[in-house]
């Protein structure tokens, strides 16, 4: 193999993209030619430096929620070109369920009552990420957020300040989830949003239970006649850490 030929193949050699025969030829040439071997080193070095410099970005939650909502909406709309396919279905009396929000998309399992609540909480969480839906009261100060709920809902959610634990308070809102008016306290962690729902629910206390669906984590527990749900796309470890702080 000639040096010029070898130089042209160095990147593909480094990336293991050569055919076995060519790969062997380059390898043998590098073993005998110091100059080409030095160029080969350079390719490896610059590739490593480039990899160190490039950073993966994380798609923001809001973008993910927007995309899910747009897809659900699109799926609910019959396609123009397939109009003829819908006719026999309509004739057969089938009703295409309207997928009008991210809701149906996020169905966890249509099984038990707890699953249905989880689905409702998840839908509410995704909806809250749409622009302008997250907060009724935006404040990092617990003394602004807590009194805001007074007279608006028949429970007084606890709103601890968790800044020092790395969960800054963002604010709160009222929501309506699974037939319950709910108080929602919103915390953040880096770019993640954590919604903490609470509503009155008679029954014995229950320890935290976790669930996962579509990349979101949910933790639910019951304490003193109040049901709590914490939901986020944060990893389960950090979400559990927040739950432990809230239960203290």
């Amino acid at each position, binding site marked *: 193999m000639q040096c010029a030929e070898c130089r*042209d193949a*160095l*990147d*593909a050699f480094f*990336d293991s*993209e050569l055919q076995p025969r060519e790969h062997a030829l380059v390898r043998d040439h590098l073993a005998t030619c110091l100059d080409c071997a030095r160029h080969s080193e*350079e*390719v490896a*070095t*610059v*590739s490593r*430096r*480039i*990899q*160190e*410099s*490039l950073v*993966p*970005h*994380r*798609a*923001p939650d809001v*973008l*993910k929620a*927007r*995309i*899910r909502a*747009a*897809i*659900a909406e*699109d*799926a*609910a709309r019959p396609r123009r070109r397939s109009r003829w396919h819908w006719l026999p279905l309509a004739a057969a009396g089938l009703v*295409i*369920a309207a*997928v009008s929000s991210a809701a*149906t*998309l996020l169905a966890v399992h249509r099984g038990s009552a707890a699953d249905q609540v989880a689905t409702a909480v998840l839908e509410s969480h995704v909806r809250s990420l749409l622009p302008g839906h997250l907060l009724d009261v935006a404040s990092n100060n617990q003394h602004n957020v807590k009194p805001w709920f007074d007279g608006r809902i028949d429970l007084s959610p606890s709103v601890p300040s968790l800044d020092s634990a790395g969960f800054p308070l963002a604010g709160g809102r009222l929501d309506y989830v699974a037939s319950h008016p709910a108080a929602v306290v919103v915390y953040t962690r880096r770019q993640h949003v954590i919604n903490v729902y609470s509503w009155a629910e008679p029954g014995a206390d229950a320890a935290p239970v976790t669930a996962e669906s*579509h*990349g979101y984590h949910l933790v639910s527990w019951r304490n003193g006649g109040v049901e709590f749900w914490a939901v986020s796309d944060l990893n389960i470890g950090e979400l559990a850490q927040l739950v432990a702080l809230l239960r203290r």
Partner: protein
Amino acid sequence: MVSAQVERFETLILPHLDDAYTLARYLLRDEHDAQDAVQDAALRAFRFFGGFRDGDPRAWFLAIVRNCCRTWQRRHRRDRLSIPLADDHAAELAADSASDTLAMERSERAAIARAIDALPPEFREVIVLRELQGLSYAEISGVIGVPVGTVMSRLSRARRRIAAALGQTLEAS
């Protein structure tokens, strides 16, 4: 029927949104443009999803993202080739005074980031697809729609340009 399609799309395509967003950030160099382009790409991907049979779903989706970014750039005529990248790299550079070695490493990284940013788009995309997203030459060829041989030569030239830019920084320091 409809929901089965949605479910399959959720399973195969949506897990790659971070990669899609990363590619769009590097191609468009603006976070809002990147968000809009990725949303557009996801919806298009969903509409064409019936046509996706086999192959790598990530590469399939990235091809659509890449084309949406191209269209986006053409439509908005915002070519910011000459604007030096990344305030965060500049800030990183300015903020540092901890140690000389660290400062040197950081200034090197900033120099590479600037060099990548200054590459023509057809070079920048192969660098990101290969060095960050780890696609094979054949996959890159599918994403950007050029023969494998062209991928090979573009990647090689892009690396040399970056090496040259880095060499200048090292000599200057």
